[in-house]
């Protein structure tokens, strides 16, 4: 988790940090002039987002890039946020300290895992231009902002500061700024356009941070504005303690040596998640260590034995020690509806489906996969789809081919879902973009460059399942579109063409115009459903209207079902037809007799949603005769929804707010630990359904 910090720590005695920086700049994201700028923006923006999230402020971030000396590739970067601000005395610590204490007790999903931090930017500026970085920051409780120029004493690994002072901070409109931080840096870098650019980085950031407003003024003075589409901040993540399955030897050694615990028993119970009192006993037994052993008496071989016990290599009664799974409330998924909004605001399209899988665990680390697919609109149809990869809400822009998330996309045969793909392998082609987000307490990268996720069977499986599910959604959408086009044609036929044929033929033969109803029934020979889902500005509700026409010669009976965003907290109103709840997010109405030629309508409104949250209602039916425009209810689908509902309840029960205590009873029927490692925290069902998004 703090690989670079450790690397720096172990190296600092031998080489000056500046030298280390120079040697390892490809790890640190400063290997090319174009990438250096992206890295600098990334560090500053990540900091801003993290600070706002922590302080529960909706972020507004402004990024400006100016070319100072185009011949020498000197650019100026200004990043301003509306975060809580940094107290004056902490500024140099935040911006000038490269090595912060490794906080291995706190494991949680954070953006900061993925870079050297803003200090790296300060150092890069100093190394390439010899200039310090100007910081201005204001906290709400102080009337003025603190200003200071930060540099870095690379030999002492300490910040240097100059021109410290205080000033009143005015906004552009002349009002005074309440709180926030602004960084102005000058560095050798190159501004580029295209797939790997500051613009793309910010665009991607805006997709996965729909709660943020991002304004970017590029060197040509053009202003790019990504608006905030939700007022909802990401869930605050809880820190969790490391799980024994995810511990490495070095980490365990450090934990042991830094421990203030009374003895091994306390050490195990206080510093790890998933260790119950019974697990503690079993671990001690397996490691052949007395639980009452003082910590300082635990040495080299003991630690190794303990680790083996952790990993299930040492057994108790022929079995590995039974551990609980780590809690998963340390993860903060973006969530389906917000991914959908983020994608929709950034990319013009016809169809969006998103899916957040239930959290899972790999090697003691909780993780969660989220995917989104956006299709149609103005996207090019003959090019490979755009892949948008994210780890803990941070865009991954390089090394696409070597990344686990890309491989998960490539492992799916997209042809069956309506995209082109040569030989059913590789990145599919079509007017689409695919988003994959991995939220995890421990994101494993292929290298220190942290641009590609390393192979991991469980993560791969989760991502793949999510892709398949989305693919099915896309297929259904395309099928439905086709069907709707057909239905539209039929309506044109009976409303326009057939009457014209009747009239013209009657006129030519000089006979009366014949009655059409018989022919219409024969031509349509179906029950047809049309549904609309529209935002009602006046009532701030989403109005849904489902209409059924019986164009057959017999009376028909149906149960009509419709999906609705119950999971996202919507409530159903004005549902005059009544009906009943069928499952989470599925409502059912019984229509007893729809006479030949009859038209019936079901209407309801959804409140508690924002505009654009719910744009398509899926209509399903139960009954023997097909309904054009609706999907026959697949009872398996209903089972899946019910199972999903169950899972959500379980996962809520599973993450109680309080920590485990000594006298907590172990779960008697818990499966063996070794298997548990491979098993998800809560077994996700096959074919987890998209409860949110476009089509199911």
């Amino acid at each position, binding site marked *: 988790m703090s690989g670079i910090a450790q690397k720096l720590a172990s190296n600092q005695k031998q080489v000056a940090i500046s030298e280390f920086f120079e040697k390892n700049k490809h790890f640190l994201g400063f290997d090319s002039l174009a990438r250096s700028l992206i890295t600098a923006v990334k560090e500053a923006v990540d900091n801003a987002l993290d600070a706002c999230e922590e302080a529960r402020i909706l972020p507004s971030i402004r990024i400006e890039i100016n070319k100072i000396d185009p011949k020498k590739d000197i650019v100026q970067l200004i990043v301003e946020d509306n975060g809580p601000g940094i107290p004056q005395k902490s500024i140099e610590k935040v911006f000038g300290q490269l090595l912060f204490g490794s906080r291995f007790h706190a494991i949680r999903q954070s953006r900061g895992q993925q870079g050297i931090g803003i200090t790296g930017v300060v150092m890069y500026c100093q190394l390439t231009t010899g200039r310090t970085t100007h910081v201005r920051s204001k906290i709400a409780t102080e009337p003025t902002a603190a200003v200071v120029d930060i540099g870095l004493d690379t030999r002492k690994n300490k910040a240097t500061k100059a021109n410290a002072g205080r000033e009143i901070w005015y906004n552009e409109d002349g009002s005074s700024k309440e709180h926030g931080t602004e960084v102005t840096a000058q560095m050798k870098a190159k501004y580029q356009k295209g797939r790997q650019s500051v613009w793309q980085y910010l665009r991607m950031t805006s997709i996965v941070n729909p709660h943020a407003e991002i304004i970017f003024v590029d060197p040509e003075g053009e202003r790019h504005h990504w608006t905030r589409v939700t007022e909802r901040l990401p869930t605050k993540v809880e820190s969790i303690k490391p799980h024994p399955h995810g511990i490495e030897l070095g980490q365990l050694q450090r934990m042991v040596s830094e421990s203030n615990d009374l003895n091994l028993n306390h050490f195990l119970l206080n510093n790890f998640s998933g260790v119950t009192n019974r697990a503690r006993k079993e671990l001690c037994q397996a490691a052949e260590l007395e639980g009452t052993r003082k910590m300082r008496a635990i040495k080299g071989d003991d630690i190794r034995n303990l680790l083996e016990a952790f990993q299930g290599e040492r057994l108790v009664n022929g079995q590995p020690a039974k551990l609980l799974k780590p809690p998963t409330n340390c993860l903060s998924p973006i969530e389906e509806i917000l991914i959908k909004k983020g994608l929709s605001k950034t990319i013009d399209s016809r169809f969006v489906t998103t899916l957040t899988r239930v959290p899972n665990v790999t090697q003691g680390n909780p993780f969660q996969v989220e995917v989104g697919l956006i299709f149609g609109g103005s996207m090019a149809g003959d090019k490979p789809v755009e892949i948008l990869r994210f780890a803990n809400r941070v865009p991954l822009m390089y090394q696409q081919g070597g990344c686990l998330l890309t491989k998960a996309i490539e492992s799916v045969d997209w042809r069956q879902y309506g995209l082109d793909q040569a030989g059913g392998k590789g990145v599919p082609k079509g007017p689409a973009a695919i988003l994959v987000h991995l939220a995890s307490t421990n994101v494993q990268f292929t290298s220190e460059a942290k641009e590609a996720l390393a192979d991991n069977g469980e993560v791969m499986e989760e991502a793949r399942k999510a892709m398949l599910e989305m693919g099915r959604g896309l297929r259904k959408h395309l099928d439905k579109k086709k069907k709707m086009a057909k239905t539209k*044609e*039929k309506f*044109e*036929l009976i409303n*326009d*063409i*057939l009457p*014209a*044929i*009747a009239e*013209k*033929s*009657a*006129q*030519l*033969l000089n*006979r009366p115009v*014949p*009655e*059409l*109803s*018989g*022919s219409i*029934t*024969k*031509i349509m020979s179906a029950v047809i459903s049309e549904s609309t889902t529209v935002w009602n500005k006046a009532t701030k509700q989403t109005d849904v209207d489902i209409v059924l026409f019986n164009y057959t010669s017999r009376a028909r009976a149906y149960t009509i079902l419709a999906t609705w965003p119950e999971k996202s907290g919507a409530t159903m109103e004005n549902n005059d037809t009544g009906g009943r709840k069928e499952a989470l997010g599925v409502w059912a109405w019984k229509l007893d007799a729809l006479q030949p030629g009859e038209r019936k309508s079901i209407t309801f409104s959804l409140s508690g949603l924002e505009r654009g949250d719910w744009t398509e209602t899926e209509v399903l039916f139960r009954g023997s005769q097909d309904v054009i425009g609706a999907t026959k209810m697949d009872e398996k689908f209903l089972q899946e929804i019910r199972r999903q509902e169950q899972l959500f309840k379980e996962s809520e029960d599973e993450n109680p707010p309080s920590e485990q205590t000594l006298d907590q009873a172990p779960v008697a029927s818990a499966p063996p630990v070794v298997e548990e490692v491979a098993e998800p925290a809560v077994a996700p069902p096959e074919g987890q359904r998209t409860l949110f998004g476009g089509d199911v």
Partner: protein
Amino acid sequence: MSRMHTPEETKAAMHEVVAEMYDRIVKGEPPTMTLPVRTKNNIAFDKKLGVYKYGKKQSIRDATSLGSAKQLLRALHVVEFIEEMLDAGKSSTLREMYYISEGWGMGKFGSQNDSNNLAEDLEIVTKCLREDFKLRPEEDGARMIGNLTLRERNRRGEWMRINARDDVGDSGYGVPYNVELEKIELLEHDIDFIMAIETGGMFDRLIENGFDEDYRCGLLHLKGQPARSTRRIMKRMSEEWDLPVVVFLDGDPWSFRIFASIAYGAIKTAHISEYLATPSATYLGITADDIVAYDLPSDDLSKKDIEALNAELSDPRFADSWWQDQINMMLELDKKAEQQSLAKYGLDFVTETYLPEKLAELGLA
């Protein structure tokens, strides 16, 4: 078949088509139009006429899909339009009808092809000719050169006597779209056979080399897939003057098709095959053997060529063993050759060597 219908007969025939639609609606059924299947699977050799005609397979175009329904509506508009022309004593080209359809609202044509097909549909169903409908083709007829004399009634209604050797320029006599008796009479000739030629280049080559006089023949430029009037005048000359017809085309699958439409009847116009086809016509070349025998410069067959050849193998018109051999041989060679590839051996090779040899095989030289 060459008998034309009176306007009243034509109207009555068209009203049957309209009545089929009307009666179906009255019965509470989707309106329909019944017509023979127009594919190679539904053509059969008519022994009495010596040509291929449509078989018994009928297809019913009913208004259960938008496309078919629009087609029915268009047919009604076309019927109305023809009635108006019959009443006013006017005629129009198919292309003019296509543009006039702009005013038919939902019944307007999507493309010129649509309107051509529909005119053919109506011909088939009503057993009338498009001349009965007062519809003229856009396609222009062939060019002809040779010592033959005919009489054509010009725009002023006067008969003009034309010798297709002495009274014409280098481009020859232009065959009009209507070659029926009321327009053209075949008077006399001093030739031994008629040679139909696919390309303009070859037609001009033979004229320049004086082939028509040396070999006492009439030359006819087909301009690719020959127009109805071209096929019709060939048939008339062949029958009325009892002249053999030889056909000299490129050596590729498309030429085979051109020949089939000349000799056996085209699939699209199988309803009037006996009126257009010349069953006695002979395929002179380029044959698949010629490509080998004369070592002609050739091109590889394209994917489409191969598909066409394979389709021809199962086409009843190519069922005889000579054609099967030719087609299979071309597939085996995987080569095709153009008429003008004969120029490999010089400009005179075609007239001095190739054609004399080929005609000798047929006993014509």
